């Protein structure tokens, strides 16, 4: 193993040398702006030191022995990326980012965060398991997506926080300050031209540096393990773990599309139109951020980087062992009820029973799950209308409120099912394989 690791390090050392040099340059530019634009010589000095350090690391990496993460740290991160800690942890992280957003929008804090995540990436790349997943050509865009989303979320939050404070002081949002009109030629058309040229250059560099993947010719008998959908659908594929295909693959995606389309008709809040703000539209903001960042993007990251052979979860520094065996002792709610609570076998229609009799046996067997699901979708909306969503209900009217409440409940059913699966090993709340209806 040691020899192959040395070979791997030699392969990536050139890339990492350039990578750390890029971080050094990035910090040098930042230091220069601190010095010349912001007139903060002390800060400039600190970031110059960082740039120098990165140049040193770059030289060491180029020399063939890039710095690596210690094995205990890798083991710890592997442990962190188990499904429970990963999902709960990313949610908690988002909550922390949101609650302390005034701290995190500070440019220096963001810059430190960017540096740390880039250095972490660089250190991690020395691990061949990590490198194999991240450098898979089709996964490279997802790494880009993560950094882009981080940047734009930071930017939007910074502008939102600033506007919120201005509005609190009775000032208009910053967007209002640039009210003066300019001619589209030259101001906009030249911006567009520059964007097009920059983007073309960027695409050309990307296309030259990274070859598009081409595997062996298609064979319908050789099933790869794992078989993955294109990366943007991996959130949906991940949902297959918690739902049957009719729900994860058809109903929920349709509801996502329908729910997105319904947003402007559900959101009756007239404020926050045309400028960044958080306080003015907290419910809409939090719902969307949770749906997009947590339920969509982190599931894609999970599906891309952490799901390996047999759709098992592997840590980012773990070898994708196709023979890794995980005990699957999932149970259905009806099993828990009849076997564990009532201490008897599942009710089963006697052989040769009529269809009606069979149906009633199935309903009898699954009664608890059916009652729970019906209560969730039928009782909760009116209950919420009279309690937490009272003002919403009064302002929205019956139809709009019901659509909003049901979409919200469908959305929340995913994290609920994920938690039930991990904590109670609960697979299905309703299990009627007779008609492919499992929920």
């Amino acid at each position, binding site marked *: 193993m040691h020899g192959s690791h040395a070979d791997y390090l030699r392969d990536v050392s050139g890339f990492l040398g350039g990578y750390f040099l890029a971080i050094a340059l990035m910090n040098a530019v930042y230091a220069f702006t601190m010095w010349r634009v912001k007139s903060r010589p002390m800060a400039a000095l600190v970031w110059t030191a960082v740039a120098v350090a990165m140049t040193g690391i770059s030289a060491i990496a180029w020399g063939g022995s890039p710095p690596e993460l210690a094995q205990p740290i890798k083991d710890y991160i592997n442990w962190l990326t188990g499904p429970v800690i990963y999902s709960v942890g990313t949610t908690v992280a988002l909550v922390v980012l949101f609650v302390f957003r005034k701290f995190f929008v500070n440019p220096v804090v963001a810059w430190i965060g960017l540096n740390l995540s880039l250095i972490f990436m660089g250190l991690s790349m020395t691990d061949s398991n990590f490198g194999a997943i991240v450098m898979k050509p089709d996964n490279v865009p997802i790494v880009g997506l993560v950094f882009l989303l981080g940047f734009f979320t930071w930017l939007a939050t910074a502008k939102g926080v600033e506007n919120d404070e201005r509005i609190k002081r009775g000032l208009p949002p910053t967007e209002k300050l640039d009210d003066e009109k300019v001619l589209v*030629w030259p101001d906009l058309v030249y911006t567009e031209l520059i964007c097009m040229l920059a983007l073309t250059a960027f695409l050309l560099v990307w296309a030259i540096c990274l070859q598009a993947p081409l595997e062996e010719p298609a064979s*319908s008998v050789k099933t790869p393990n794992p078989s993955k959908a294109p990366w943007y659908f991996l959130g949906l594929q991940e949902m297959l773990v918690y739902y049957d295909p009719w729900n994860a693959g058809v109903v929920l995606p349709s509801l996502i599309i329908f729910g997105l389309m319904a947003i402007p*008709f559900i959101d009756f809040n007239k404020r926050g*139109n045309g400028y960044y703000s958080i306080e003015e539209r907290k419910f809409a903001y939090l719902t969307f951020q949770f749906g997009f960042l947590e339920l969509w993007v982190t599931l894609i990251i999970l599906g891309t980087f952490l799901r390996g052979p047999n759709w098992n979860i592997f840590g980012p520094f773990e070898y994708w062992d196709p023979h890794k065996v995980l005990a699957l002792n999932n149970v259905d709610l009806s099993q828990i009820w009849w076997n564990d609570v009532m201490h008897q076998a599942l009710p089963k229609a006697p052989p040769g029973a009529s269809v009606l009799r069979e149906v009633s046996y199935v309903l009898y067997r699954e009664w608890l799950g059916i009652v729970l699901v019906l209560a969730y979708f039928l009782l909760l909306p009116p209950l919420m209308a009279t309690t937490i969503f009272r003002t919403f209900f009064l302002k929205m009217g019956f139809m709009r409120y019901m659509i909003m409440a049901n979409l919200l409940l469908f959305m929340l059913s995913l994290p609920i099912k994920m938690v039930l699966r991990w904590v109670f090993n609960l697979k299905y709340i309703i299990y009627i394989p007779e008609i492919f209806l499992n929920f």
Partner: protein
Amino acid sequence: MSLGEIIRESQVWKSIFRHPMPTDRRNRIVVMLTNFFLHLHPVSIKKQGIALSYTWCMGGVTFFLFLVETVTGVLLMFYYRPTLEWAYNDILALRDVLSLGILRELHRWGAHAMVITTWLHMYRVFLTGSYKPPREFNWVVGVILLLLTLLLSFTGYLLPWDQLAIWAITVGSNMARATPILGHEGPGQQLLTVGGIDMITNASDARFGLLGARFVGEETLNRFYILHCIAIPLVVALLLAIHFWRVRKDGGISGPL
């Protein structure tokens, strides 16, 4: 007279551009009104409406990537044949033999980038509350365009006809098997039984309609090729036109009132 002046004074030039160079205020206005490509824009715009920190330029970048995909896609179509015999070999030759094989890289990375920029555009529009009245309908058009972008990428994924392609499409389309009522393994599939004969089988369900066969094969390749190169782009082009037109009709780019 310099060469530039000779050209600009010629009858041919003047037949195309009916006004002098846009160097003064009047002609900068006229150029926006008389040029077909520029007339998508308004003549003047609020300064904040073109601030990159506000717009992120992601809608424009997405449209530009659509154009890149169209141009590189058309060029690739001259070369690529969507048959079991040739599909893989043509891609192989693009990689190893053709001097302009980089077109495939441009097309593939452009496609990934387009999915990402579409999401970021939606993200920006949501975070600035720009879907609110009067722009509700344009948000809906945008959601359809987002879905079509994903479908464009998905249908294109199959065309190289390698292991990555067919298994991604197999996994992605297996879900259609479980479509309620219309999939042969979906709940309620038994409802469509006439005289004891199942109407919904693996040769007649939603998945079959998508793939043109019971498994991902040559019929699927043909079907996805047509969807990818002709059917979806046509719909996207139409919706893009509506999307842009509505931006203008709904009062231009959003901003505080």
